[in-house]
Structure formats: C-alpha cells, structure tokens
C-alpha cells in the first residue's frame, strides 16, 4: 500500500563502498605500481629461498680465493650480484633479507593492531576518566625515545629465551611494535570518538541496539579505512626501524641477513666494492616507496569525503 504515487528514480550503477574505493585506487597510477611491487615482495618473501641460487649462508670459498680473497663483482659467472667478502651470494642474501623485512612489517603491524586498536577504541568509546588515563599513558610512551627503548630492551633481554628466539628477530619485532602502537591508538580513539557522536550511531541507539553491537556493526567497520591506511603507511617505518637497528648491529644475528645488516657489512667495502651497499639500499628504497605509494593511494581511495563521488 504505497502512500506515495511517485517512486523516485535512481542511477543504475550498483556499487558498494568497497568497490568504489577499489575503483578509485585503480585510477591512481602510483598506487597501482606500489601495489604490484608490494605483491611481488610478498611473493618473494614467501617463496624467495626456493628461488635463491645459493643458500644464504653458504660461502663460495673457491670463487673468493680465485678472486684474491676479495668480494666477487656483480655479473660474475655463478653470482648475479656478486658475493660478499665471505663469498656468500648477494642475490640470495637479498632474498633472505626480503623475508626478514616482510616479516618485520607484518609482525610489527600485528602487534600495533593488537595493542593500539583496543586501547584506542576503549578510550574513545568509554571516554571520561578511562580515556584520560589511557591517553596519558600513551603520551608517556610517545614521549619516550623509540630507539633508546628498543636498544635497552634488546640489551636487557638478549640472553633470555625471547632474545634468542628466531635468530633474535622476535625481540626486535616486539620492541618496534611496542613503540609503534601509540599512533594507532590515537587514530582509533579519534575515529571512535567522532563516530560515537554520528547520527547513525544515535539512530542505532534510538532503536535499542546494544552497545556491543553498535561497536561491532557500526563503529569498527567505519574505522577500518583509516586503520588500513595507517597500517600500510606504518610498514615502511617498521622496515626502516629494523634496518636501522640491524645497521647499528642490534637484532638480526649472522648468518641471517637483513637489508640493514647487509648495508652495514657492505659499508666496510664501500670504496672498492660499492655494489655491496648499492643493491641492499636499492631493495630497501624500492620497498619503502612502494608501501608509501600504496598507502597514499589507499588514503585517497578510502577518504570518506570522496566516497560516492564519480
């Protein structure tokens, strides 16, 4: 029993917010390039060691000796990118480094999500005193110098089980994650705070929807966009942090290689054998810029102000 005569017209193009965002993302050339490189990086990290011509730890001593105990230059017979001073294949070590970098990226962001999202959501949703305490706590963490915190943590825990697990990497992941969640908590708090006041949440409350369902059905799904962007843009900083730590000699233990520790080792030969620094640095730069391009693209694509626009 329609009370109105006129049924209104509607554009015929069907599209959800997700499909909309994807369409906008696919229009952004830099973001697409970033996304492709990121996917390639993920594949390399997953299957890289299988592709490697040499195991990352094997020393080709014969080749070195033949070269007068010096690192092999790129494009030598059996080593595409040459070897380091111990005769280990640089290309294989770069692939191993990719695995380290990607796992840093993923584990650190997992730590950030697990700590940052609940703290931010709780602060924003409950407000008042809880918000005040949680946010002052994050302020303290934020104010503490990251690098100092990580160095202290890894020195203190070096000889424990945690320090030795996964060639020392686990400790690094946790330490980086423990300093990086603060930004996420603040972001989520802001999101929740503004969504809590939005009329659609008010409408849900007015129809008697429970708080738990409001958070799960309305608040979290609407915060996901900015969180995805923050995670993507947080990855390069995590990779960079790991590289920095490895460069100054904390963290990854030989013989495993990360791009940071490769640059560190290579820096001793930088005058005579620049390729030992150039290739890992290049790998690092490509990874960082790709994630940043993708993150920027995602931010533009998911921006609620652009949502629904042609």
């Amino acid at each position, binding site marked *: 029993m329609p009370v109105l005569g006129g049924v*209104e017209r509607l554009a015929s193009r069907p599209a959800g917010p997700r499909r909309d965002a994807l369409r906008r993302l696919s229009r952004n050339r830099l973001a697409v390039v970033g996304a492709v490189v990121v996917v390639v990086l993920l594949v390399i990290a997953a299957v890289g060691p299988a592709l490697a011509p040499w195991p990352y730890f094997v020393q080709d001593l014969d080749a070195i000796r033949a070269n007068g105990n010096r690192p092999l230059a790129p494009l030598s017979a059996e080593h595409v990118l040459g070897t380091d001073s111990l005769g280990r294949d640089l290309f294989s070590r770069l692939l191993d480094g990719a695995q380290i970098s990607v796992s840093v990226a993923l584990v650190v962001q997992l730590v950030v999500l697990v700590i940052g999202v609940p703290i931010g959501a709780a602060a924003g949703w409950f407000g008042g005193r809880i918000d005040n305490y949680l946010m002052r706590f994050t302020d303290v963490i934020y104010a503490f110098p990251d690098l100092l915190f990580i160095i202290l943590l890894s020195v203190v825990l070096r000889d424990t089980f945690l320090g030795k697990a996964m060639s020392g990497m686990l400790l690094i992941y946790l330490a980086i994650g423990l300093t990086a969640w603060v930004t996420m908590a603040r972001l989520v708090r802001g999101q929740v705070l503004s969504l809590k006041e939005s009329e659609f949440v008010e409408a849900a409350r007015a129809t008697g929807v429970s708080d738990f369902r409001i958070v799960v059905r309305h608040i979290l799904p609407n915060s996901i966009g900015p969180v995805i962007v923050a995670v993507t843009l947080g990855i390069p900083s995590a990779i960079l942090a790991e590289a920095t730590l490895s460069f100054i000699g904390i963290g990854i233990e030989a013989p495993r290689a990360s791009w940071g520790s490769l640059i560190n080792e290579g820096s001793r030969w930088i005058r005579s054998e620049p390729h030992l620094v150039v290739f890992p640095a290049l790998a690092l730069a490509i990874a960082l810029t790709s994630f940043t391009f993708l993150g920027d693209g995602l931010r533009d694509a998911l921006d609620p102000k652009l949502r629904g626009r042609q």
Partner: protein
Amino acid sequence: MTPPTRRETETGTAAQLPEMVEVSTPEGQRLVAQLTDEAERHSRKLLQVRDLSTYFFTPGGVVHAVDEVSFDLDYGETLGLVGESGCGKSVTALSIARLVAQPPGRIVDGEVIFDGIDLLELSGEEMRLLRGRKIGFIFQDPMTSLNPTLRVGHQISESARTHLGLSRQAAAARAVDLLGMVGIPRPRERLGDYPHQFSGGMRQRVMIAIALACQPMLLIADEPTTALDVTVQAQIMELLRSLTQEFRTAVILITHDLGLAAGMCQRVSVMYAGRIVETGLVDDIFERPRMPYTRALLDSRPRLDVEPGGRLRTIEGFPPDLVDPEPVCRFAARCPHRRDVCDQREPLMTPRPSHGQGHAARCWGTEPGGWIP
C-alpha cells in the same frame, strides 16, 4: 524598517555644463569628455552577461553547469538569482568574477561586460585588482572566506590598503568606520579579535565590511544568510539593504529562498538545470510567473501568508543530468503541463511584454497561443 522602495537608476546629470565654456580650450575638452562619459554610463548597463557557459570536465562527462546564461544589471540595481542547489546560480556568480576552479571547470563561451570592460578578456592580474576594488563578495559560510589566523582589523584594512593605497593608519581608521557601519559594537576594541571570537551573524557582518571596504559597484552575495537563524538573517538583510542603497551598490543576490528575493530585489531571474528559465520584475515573477517551474517553486513550500491545509503541491522527480543535456525543455520531465513539443525542442527565452517590463520566459506552453493560461 523602511519598506524597500523601487530605486531609480537615473540620478540626473551629475555635472552641468557651465554657461560659457570655450570648447576648444583644454578645460572645455576635459568637460566635454567627462560629460560624454557620464552620458555613456547612463545609457549602458553595469553588467551585461551574454551567453555565458561554464562547463565542468569530469571523468563522468562534460557537465553543463551554466549554459548560455544572459542577463543585464543596472547601476545600483538588486537582482535575485533564484534556484535550487545544482541549478548553476553559484557557478554563474563565480564565473562573473572568474573564480571557477580550473580544472575541472572552464568558462567555455560568452561575454561578461562589466562597466564597459569584458572581464573574460582581462589578465589574471587585472582581474585580481578588479575583484575587491569594484566587485565585492559575500559567501554563505564566512568562516571559509575569513582567514582564521589573521586579526579581523587586518583583514578589513588589507583590502583598503591594496586597492585604495591607504596608509596603515588611514586603513585602520577606515576599518573602525566600516565595523561600526555594519553594526558591530565597540569596533575599535574588536579590530584585534580573530574571526572565531565572533558569532556567525557578526562574522557575516565582518564579511560585509570587507566586501564593501572599497565601495564596489557590484556586490555578489551568495546565499549570505543560509547558515544563520531567521532573526539574524533579518538583521543582515536589513543591513545589506541600507548599505547598498546608501552606496548605490548593485547586488546579485543568490538564494534558494524566494521570500528573501521578494523582499530584497527589483528583478528576479529563476535558474533551472544550468539555464535561466524566467526573468522579470519582482512583482511580475511572483504574481504571474510564465514558467511552470517558477510556479511550482512558489507552491512547493508552506508559506506564512497562505492558510495551511491540504497537501503541498510538490515537484515530483529530479532535475536532469547536466552531462550533455538533450536539446529539449529541461523541466519537461517534471512539468505538469508537458506536451509533445516540450520533449522535441528546447524553448528559447522569449520576451513576454504583456506580463511586465523586461519579462521573459523559456516555455512553449506560455508562448502566445500556448496552452498554459
């Protein structure tokens, strides 16, 4: 509280030729030139917009936001540009001042003759000097046009200093005068305040002070009171009315509120879907509109001066898509009087002299011999 009177556009010749002047002397030559200039001014319009078209080039196609819009404005006259959102009234105003964001927008065709100069031919720098000096602007949201980090006094005197070349002191004194003139209490003390320290209505007064700082010949007011409460709206409109009368400033009032236009304007142009569909003296437009859209707009809202009761006569449907519009009447799809011809050819703006001076409408049904009474 004075009722708005119809303003005369003629003020009489300002300078009279002295009894005996030898025309061959330099003094005489100057006088003759001055008189000719005066005479020319009286015969011409302040603003002549001819076939102005502004399109937006978007991934979805070319949007004909303003399509062959033409109108005139006399010196000191107030014209209402009325229509719903998306009809192109704001873009028309922005195009006149050449403030359309480019890209995606572009003025693709037309002439805008302002006080004898074609604005579309000016360089960017010349246009910048003209804005503020001769054309003032007031927008709906004063917060977006005021700089939040600068003191209000500075923002008012800035315009007087750039355009009138006043000294710092003189400009500051002028700012105090202007703030007092727009009705801000204790103007001298408030010069040092920032925009956020003013209420919405007071901010709009500051905008008016800035817009009128150089006594422009034309003031474009784009929904100046839409964000304000009715009592504050009444204050602002009263202020605009008295100031523009005092300075003989011509006004283009852009609004969706027919009531505002009824109280402020001498003439009204109604826009729909990028086109002007009807234009005429304010009484003629409101009493006997010659375009069904104008009629529908008047009927679709409850009015204080009409006894309530019954259903509102609403306009069903939506305005058409302005991406490459069909050459048919753009209102036809929603028009209760539509006939076949409306869907075949687009009507032109034709004069309707029997319905008032300068009255013109774009409608097949009200053409002589048409089917709409």
